[in-house]
């Protein structure tokens, strides 16, 4: 028996109040039985959170770029004054051979067990992490984005093949694949390249899927049909019409991706699978400080490494959210 569909999506009350006074805030008064009501949406310019995130990231990037000329020690110079313990596995407490406070003069963040200045290692580590992060995601966006764009635009057999290919890449858990690729590339290329390639390859299928999903949505829009009716070639339509609409969504995902890659890079360096130990990196800092932590000497070194990772990922996540909200990107079903 055919039935009349209910009025717009919400409850009858919402419809009613919508017509009587509100459109965007019907939710505020919709009967929710048990909840106390939802706060009405407030539009603001970039909040303080977003600015903090931007400040951190920009500061980090700048510091990483001009690292050599910064007034800090070199990452591999040793200073006994901040060396935390004379012997790596000694259980002597802090007073046995080094400063007790992390903030000794000249060394803002103190030192690790080898006497390296932590601030310097963190800044140089930022270099590595950021290069890997943006490099890998850059690679992923170009390769994955291209695949996704083509798959979503042409559909049919090309789509099936590309999706199959991406699915196979997704069939192996990311970190396991990263480990395998590291093993394959080890010794053949520099550390940085290993990470960029390995993590880049891993990011291809995910970025490809998202690009494809977005492309599918946008390709169905009428302006694409219109462009086609005017005789535009496929390639032109793809780049001129579809791509500019897909990019904003990708921007948000890209930021998230960089965060994930940075976390993965830290994890890989922590595992110490043959990546250079002298090269400063956040994961390496944590690995260095591990023994101190488990032996109860101090958590400071691990803390410094973790703090940099955490703040960077948090900032990236936050900005990704802000970007997404800004561009009002619909979350396409993947």
């Amino acid at each position: 028996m055919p039935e009349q569909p209910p009025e717009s999506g919400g409850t009858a009350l919402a419809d009613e109040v919508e017509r009587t006074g509100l459109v965007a805030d019907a939710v505020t008064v919709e009967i929710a039985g048990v909840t106390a009501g939802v706060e009405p949406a407030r539009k603001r310019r970039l909040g303080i959170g977003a600015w903090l995130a931007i400040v951190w990231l920009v500061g980090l990037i700048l510091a990483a770029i001009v690292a050599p000329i910064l007034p800090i020690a070199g990452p591999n110079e040793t200073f006994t004054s901040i060396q935390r313990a004379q012997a790596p596995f000694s259980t002597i407490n802090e007073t046995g051979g080094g400063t007790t406070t992390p903030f000794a003069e000249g060394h803002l963040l103190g030192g690790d067990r080898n006497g390296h200045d932590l601030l310097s290692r963190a800044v140089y580590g930022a270099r590595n992490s950021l290069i890997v992060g943006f490099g890998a995601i850059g690679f992923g966006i170009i390769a994955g984005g291209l695949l996704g764009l083509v798959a979503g635009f042409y559909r049919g057999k090309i789509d099936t093949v590309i999706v199959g290919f991406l699915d196979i890449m997704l069939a192996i858990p990311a970190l396991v694949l990263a480990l395998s690729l590291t093993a394959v590339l080890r010794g053949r290329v520099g550390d940085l390249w290993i990470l960029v390639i390995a993590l880049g390859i891993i990011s291809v299928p995910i970025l490809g899927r998202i690009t494809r999903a977005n492309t599918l949505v946008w390709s169905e829009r009428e302006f694409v049909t219109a462009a086609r009716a005017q005789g535009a070639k496929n390639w032109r339509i793809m780049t001129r019409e579809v791509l500019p609409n897909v990019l904003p969504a990708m921007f948000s995902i890209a930021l998230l991706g960089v965060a994930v890659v940075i976390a993965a890079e830290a994890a890989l360096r922590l595992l110490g699978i043959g990546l250079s130990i002298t090269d400063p990196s956040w994961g390496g800092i944590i690995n260095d400080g591990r023994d101190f932590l488990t032996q109860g000497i101090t958590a400071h070194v691990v803390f410094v490494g973790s703090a940099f990772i955490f703040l960077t990922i948090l900032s990236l996540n936050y900005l990704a959210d802000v970007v997404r909200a800004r561009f009002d990107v619909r979350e396409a079903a993947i």
Partner: protein
Amino acid sequence: MDVVRTILGFLLILVVVVGVLGVLALAVGTRAGRKKLLQLVVVLLVVTFFSFSLIHLTPGDPARTQKPFATEEQLRPIRDEIGLNDPFLVQYKDWLVNFVQGDFGRDYSTNLPVKDAIGKQLGVSLQLIFYAQFLALLIAIPLGVVAAYRAGTWFDKVANAGAFGAIAVPPFVFAFVFIFYLAVQAGWFPTQQYVAFGTDPAEHFKHMFLPALSLAIGQIAIYMRLLRSDMIQTLQEDFITMAKAKGLTNSRILWRHALRPSSFTLLTAAALNFGALIGGAVVIEFVFQLPGMGLGLIQAVSTRQYSAVQAYVALIAVAFVLFNAFVDGLYSVLDPRIRHARAAA
């Protein structure tokens, strides 16, 4: 206690096999199901092929890298064992046949069959992942429900902000935080190592708690947010008002009426999250020195035992693929639209 272990292990394998086959059988009934089955086979083949080729992709001579100080004499039987004298595809076929039968090659640093090590490690890894997922759901569901119920209050805001922060922290960072404060300073838990359930259940859980918790926290944050957002929507539905109009208490409405329809996304996420859990488990096993598959893989990669690496990668990947196929099949069976159609029929 070993008997219990064996029985449990057996049951697990039984459940997995029956589950996968059963679901596949149901799925095969449809055309889409058959297509999926074909895809599954293709994926398995490609994945195993990739794993197999690792031994050739990695730099150096496959036999010599695994036993660097051996003479050519000593390497010959190894080359035979690995099958390096055969053409590539034959090697693959042989390796695959062995793999399916449970012969995972040999670790040439210890000279023991990989199968022995994996047998012990598999249980540890599965326990870690299962405990983590269980803990995550156990904590995330009440949190999500209460946050949704008190949406907009300070509790909700704190919970949300906390969750957002927690997502930004990699599991191993949590691991170190817990180790330092709860294990080293407070002494409530051990800092590392593993004790089997059979040996001492209390110690087993003490050793597994921090690792599981470290893995779980990130998941808790995600699950809580998902559930909260779903529940907020559900709570605005008419049938909730109706339940209120029946005079039922808030808690009853929350738990008996609102929770079930809202948990769909959550369960989907939990199921799809296993890939992240596997990756996380690898690192956590390393941090806590738990002798699981993750640690095994890391050690194999570190010591360049690529025959073992083949096995680890293949095993983990195959298990992952099968699990995803199982979940996929399960969803096509449980999907309410399909249930609808069946009910109407």
